[in-house]
Structures are given as C-alpha cells and as structure tokens.
C-alpha cells in the first residue's frame, strides 16, 4: 500500500492512461485514506467491582488486576479478581433469586429481556467503543457485527420466554437452576449474550465469569441490568482469571456449567464436572476447513476466505483456518488472495477504516508468533503482504498465509487463533472430505461450489457442527451453533440452544 499524499490531487487528474507499466504487479498500489477515528469516548472508571445481587461490590479477595487496551498497552481500569468468597457470594445470590425468577410469569420475564435488548441498542455506540478499546477488535466489527448481534440475541430469546412449551412439544420445560457461565475474550459481550439470554428466557439464574482481558463490556452490561431493574441476583458477574473460573466450576451449589474457550481448559472442566450432578455444555476450539472447489465463484470464495480467517484478527473459534483448495485452481487462488490481502488495513482499531485490529493480548501474540516460527521451521512458506508500518506500541500481527503446507504440519493441525491461514490442496471431493475430517476438532466448515449437488453431498459428509455453503462466518440468533468431537457439545442459539437450559 503506498502512501500517496493528499497534496498531489492535481497529479491524479492528469489524463495519463497511456502510461503502461511493463511489470505486472501481484498487488496494486492503493491510495490511502485519511484517519477516520471514532470520536465517541466512553468513560471507564479507574477500578471496577464485582456485580453481585444487583449491586457493585469490592472483591472480598482484595485483589485486582489491570486490564489494558491491547492497541496502546495503556491501562484502562483495574478489575476485581474474584476469590472463593466472592464466587460463593455470587452463587448464593443466584440461588436466592432462583425461586422468584423461575416462578415469574414467562411474559414478565420476556419484558425484561426486551427491555434489555432495547437498552443495548440505545447504548450501542458506547458498547462498541468499549469493546474495541478493551479487546482490540476494529470498531467496524464491534459496531456492525458484535453489538447488533448482542441485541438480536436478547430480542430473539425474549420471544421464547412464553413459548417454551412449543419448543419442547409434549414436555413441561423447567429451569435447570443456577448456571455458571464462563466466556472467552474474542467476542466478550456477544458471548455473554449467548450465555445469558437463553438461561434467563428459561427461568434460570446466572453467575457469569468474563475472560480476564475483556471484562469491561460485561460490567457495562451489569449497569444496564440495573437500569432495566432486573431483580437482584438473577445475573451476577464475577471477574477474574482462570482460578476464579475453576472455583465457579467446582462450586457445589451450581447446577449447570456452560463454557466457551479452549479445548485444553474444556477437558479440565469436563473432568471436574464428571461424577457430579452438574450439567455441562462446552464450546471449544476448532481448526475448521474451508473447501474451495474449482467450479466455485472464485472472487466470492476469496471474500469467504477473508471473512473466514481475517475476521476479528482470526480470534474466532470457528475460523476457516484450514483452506482446502482444489489443486487446479490453487495458484489462481493464491494470486487473488495476495491481491485482496493488500487492501486489508491493519492498525488503530478505533479508526473506522481498520479491517484488522490489535491482537488481544501479549500472551496471544506470543502464541501466534510461536506458530509462525514452527510453520517456517517445518518447511511451509509464509506469505505476508507488506503494508505501512504498524504502531510501535500494542500487539500486532499482519494477516498472512502459509503455502506448501503438508497436512501433518503443526500449523495444519493445531488451532493458532490468529490471522494466520494455512493453505492445503486436494484433487477429488472424497480427498477433500477426508482431509477436512482428519482433525480432532469439528466446529465448522465451509464449502464453495456452484454445483448444488456437490454442495449437498460434501456438506453431509463433513463432521462439523456448522457447515456454511458459499458463505462463511454468518451468525444468527435463530441458528444453532456448536461442535462435534473435541470442539465440544451442546448448541447455542435458536430452539436447539434452549435445550441446555431446561429440564424436561
């Protein structure tokens, strides 16, 4: 990307189409855009409490930790590190609130959820800015994807409150009880919505544990819960790190655990819940295959690849991180991908023209860099498109891809959780399916072909909870999401997602 300056307007007006460049460039030079910073500022208090029984309280642990803006490495606030006494207080509050909340008339519960959804819409800009400051994702995504989906999720589930009998025909759906919900840092507020909305719609009470690097929007949501006068104790938010999560999982008075995060932690949680009365749903990692057949609409598939792996810096559990391309078009796809990659703008997440923001944390950046090293060491070829220099502070990784990848390479098997694509090839549909399924994971997959019969045939054979056909990373509150194999079990969203929060 060249940095054309703005004072050469006259030059661009000259009628000089005859100047033919003899060399063919793989990626064109683009004009740059002036900074377009999101100007709304949202105040963040210097130190945050825990949200227990409808009020913000200081942590009994007396411990706090910093949360920073990963684009600047500046401290945003101090977050309470919930200890055993805090978790216990939150679970007790949820238990105490359960009796009344579960007996609240369903149409009354629905009113709270509708009100919550409306209030989120009204405060959307503030929430989007906060999400971007705390997590590093581009404002374009938090504004256009995360926050609208959060509101949609509450609207959708508000509608279910008084219709649960129709969702489970012939049964009498009852709440499960106190739900312990542990969420990740990649879509902080959206994951909170995915957990809270169905639980509340079904009459449960909740203790939510946000990820340690991204607690701020969950705490802002707590303010909104106060505004809408949700009865105290129905939702409690205990911030903290992994240890806080462990205490919540192991708390004897929790009826259900819902976890979204890494497969490694998911396995530990499953072990901790084994042999207890606790119900469990897990939404874990993935190494999802995005399969491009030679008869696909290639330019659309390129968009699908971009959406699949470079959305949210690749911090997406269902990211299409393993690209499987039919050999006959592999070179063409690589050329187009290089061209497209050059138009992605990396940098300040609060700039409205940024496509790829900051990596969420120093730790995650280190993980990504380790995989880039491993990939090179194992013999794959890393392609990065050079761009303007990245900011000096903050955690950054340019979007990139690996070619010459062997299916046995580490980067083709393990989840990187960053803007790193691995490209593999295949020759026949059966080889594509075999390669796609040859993974411990099974969260999502994509299939690109203009031939309907091939789409249905391949989609049916893929072991993945979600299969996107001629699109990728599309989310909807009505559509169930969840995995196979080591990507977890249970579904979130839609009618299927309600099942985890009712006893029949």
């Amino acid at each position: 990307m060249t940095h054309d300056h703005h004072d050469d307007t006259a030059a661009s007006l000259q009628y000089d189409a005859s100047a033919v460049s003899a060399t063919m460039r793989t990626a064109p030079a683009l004009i740059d855009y002036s900074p377009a910073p999101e100007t709304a500022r949202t105040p963040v208090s210097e130190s945050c409490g825990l949200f227990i029984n409808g009020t913000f309280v200081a942590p009994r642990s007396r411990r706090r930790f910093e949360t920073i803006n990963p684009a600047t490495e500046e401290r945003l606030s101090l977050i309470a590190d919930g200890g055993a006494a805090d978790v216990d207080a939150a679970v007790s509050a949820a238990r105490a609130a359960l009796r009344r909340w579960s007996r609240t008339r369903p149409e009354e519960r629905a009113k709270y959820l509708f009100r919550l959804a409306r209030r989120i819409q009204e405060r959307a800009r503030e929430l989007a800015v906060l999400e971007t400051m705390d997590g590093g994702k581009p404002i374009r995504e938090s504004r256009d994807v995360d926050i609208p989906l959060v509101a949609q999720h509450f609207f959708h589930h508000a509608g279910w409150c008084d219709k649960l009998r129709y969702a489970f025909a012939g049964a009498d759906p009852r709440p499960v009880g106190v739900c312990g919900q542990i969420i990740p840092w990649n879509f902080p507020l959206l994951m909170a919505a995915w957990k809270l909305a169905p639980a509340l719609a079904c009459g449960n009470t909740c203790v939510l544990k946000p990820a340690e690097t991204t607690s701020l929007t969950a705490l802002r949501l707590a303010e909104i819960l106060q505004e809408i006068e949700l009865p105290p104790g129905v939702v409690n938010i205990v911030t903290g790190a992994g240890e806080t999560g462990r205490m919540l999982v192991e708390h004897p008075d929790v009826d259900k655990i819902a976890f979204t995060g890494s497969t490694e932690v998911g396995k530990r949680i499953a072990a901790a819940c084994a042999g207890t009365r606790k119900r469990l749903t897990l939404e874990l990692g993935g190494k999802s295959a995005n399969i491009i057949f030679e008869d696909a609409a290639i330019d659309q598939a390129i968009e699908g690849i971009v959406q699949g792996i470079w959305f949210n810096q690749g911090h997406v559990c269902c990211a299409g991180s393993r690209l499987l391309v039919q050999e006959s078009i592999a070179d063409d796809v690589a050329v187009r991908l290089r061209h497209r990659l050059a138009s992605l703008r990396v940098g300040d997440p609060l700039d409205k023209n940024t496509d790829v923001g900051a990596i969420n944390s120093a730790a995650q950046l280190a993980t990504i860099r380790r995989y880039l090293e491993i990939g090179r060491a194992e013999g794959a070829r890393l392609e990065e498109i050079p761009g303007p220099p990245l900011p000096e502070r903050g955690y950054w990784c340019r979007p990139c891809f690996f070619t010459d990848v062997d299916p046995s390479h580490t980067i083709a098997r393990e989840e990187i959780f960053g803007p790193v694509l691995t490209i593999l090839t295949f020759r026949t549909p059966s080889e594509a399916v075999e390669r796609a399924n040859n993974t411990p994971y099974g969260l999502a997959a994509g299939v690109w072909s203009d031939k309907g019969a091939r789409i249905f045939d391949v989609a049916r054979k893929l072991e993945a909870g979600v299969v996107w056909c001629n699109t990728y990373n599309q989310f909807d509150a009505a559509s169930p999401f969840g995995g196979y194999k080591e990507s977890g079990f249970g579904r979130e969203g839609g009618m299927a997602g309600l099942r985890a929060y009712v006893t029949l």
Partner: protein
Amino acid sequence: MLEQRAVSFTRRSIKTASKVRLLRTALSMLDLTTLEGRDSPAKVRGLCRKAIHPCDIPLDPPVPSAAAVCVYPALVPVAAAALRGSTVRVASVATGFPSGQYPLEIRLADVRSAIDAGADEIDMVISRGAFLAGRRRDVAEEVRHVLRACRTVGEGGRTAHLKVILETGELETYDNVRMASDLVLEAVAAEGDVHDGEVFIKTSTGKVQPAATMPVVLIMLEAIRDHHRATGVRIGMKPAGGIRTAKQAIHHLVMVNETLGADWLTPGLFRFGASSLANDLLRQLLRQATGRYMAQHDFPEA
C-alpha cells in the same frame, strides 16, 4: 458474498484530505450526459460550458473540468464546436442507442458519422437480444466491427475511443454481467494492440432500471482486473445511471481503489455517466473549502 463485499466499500469512512481528493477526482471523471428526445442545441451548449467550468466560485486549485460531454449523434457538431480548444472530450452514443435493434450496417454507419461529426468517444450498445439468445459470437463480432470503425481514420484524420454498454439491467443476473464483460474484453483483445483506456465497459444506457448498482460495477471491475492480469492491458470502466450523490461517487472510487488499484483513479480509465452528480460533488467540495453548504440554485443546471 458479492453484495456483502459491495456494501463493505460503503462502510469506508472518507474524511478531510481523502474526501477532497476523491471529490476532485470524481469531478474530473464526469461524462456530463444528456440523452433526451427534446435535447436542444442550447441545452447542449449549456452542458458544455458547465463541463469546461463546472463552477464559477474560485477554488485553489481550480475545480477540474469534466472528462466529456455525452450526447446523441445529431448534437455532436454542437458539442464539438462548444468544446473546441478545451480538454473536455465529445462522447456520442451510437450503434442504434439505446436498444441496438438495428441492422449492423446501419449501426456501423451511425458510428462513422458520429466520429466524422466530431466525436472523440463512442458509447455503443451490445445486442442484448443476441446475447440472451445465446448468440454470443454475434455479440463479439459486432464489438470487433465497432472497434474497427472507431480505429478507422476518417475525415479529418479522426479516430475514437470506445465504450461498450452492456445494459446490465437487461442481462439480469450477475453471471450474465460477468459473462458479457469477459465476452467484450476477449473480443477487444482479439482485435489486438489495445492501448490503456482505449476501450471502456459501461453498465447502462440510463434508459433501463436497475442501472449501475455497486455489485454489478464490482463484477465488471473484477473482469477488468482479471483481464489486466492476463494481458497487461488496462480497460476502463464507466458506471452510468443512478449515481446522483457525492457519497455514491466516493463509494465507487473506494471500490475502484480496492479492486483495481490507484492506477485506475484517472479519467483515462474511469468515468461516471451522470448529470445531476456534478452539482452534488461541487456542493460537497465547496463545503470542505468554505465550511458552508450552497443551495442547489447556486449552481447552474445539469
């Protein structure tokens, strides 16, 4: 995904210096157009004046002239006289515009007479009937014939550039738009020795709805990009019909920038077929310069 991608260009936030730059670029890319049965010499002369000096209010640097004035063949002599000595080119629709439903000989005669009368650029229409009937080779042949006519040195030693109108609103599907684009680009390449900007592809006549939509323009840009990658030749692009606001024009330029690159951000390779767009571009440009919006009546018509 095509439509989603097209929408993504409208989400770019173009401010301050970038905005001024793109507004000026857009003004320089205008094909100010009037294609009405009631067009009069006086109206065409007015349009020509506006093309040369889009605005009386002095700006530094001065507001650029439009790229061309686009009229029916009968009014080409009027436009040619009014634009003589300026940088603004005379474009004429021809080949039985807008339907193309005439014998090829008559359509070619239409082209030659427009060039002889002073046209620098010919905006031809393809036979959508032949295309939709599957007679693709006929379409390719007619494009080659018209290109040859444009290249033939006629009276006064004149040749012309060619813009090929697909009339995408009648082709209906995105697949057809891409197929028609490729067909035209291949036909042109078959004639050989095409220089950059000698040939444009253009969305619409302006007589059929929908005209230039962003997904349709994107498909055509992609065809141009792939053609350039394969041959090294830069084909031009002209969306026409439906682009009325400065904001829409900027969205299109962002799309060109991110699909083809900055090389195409020149009137030699990109045009807007429009008439009311000019005034909105001027309003926005003056707003950037003065901080105030002008009223519509502060600008001459068209």
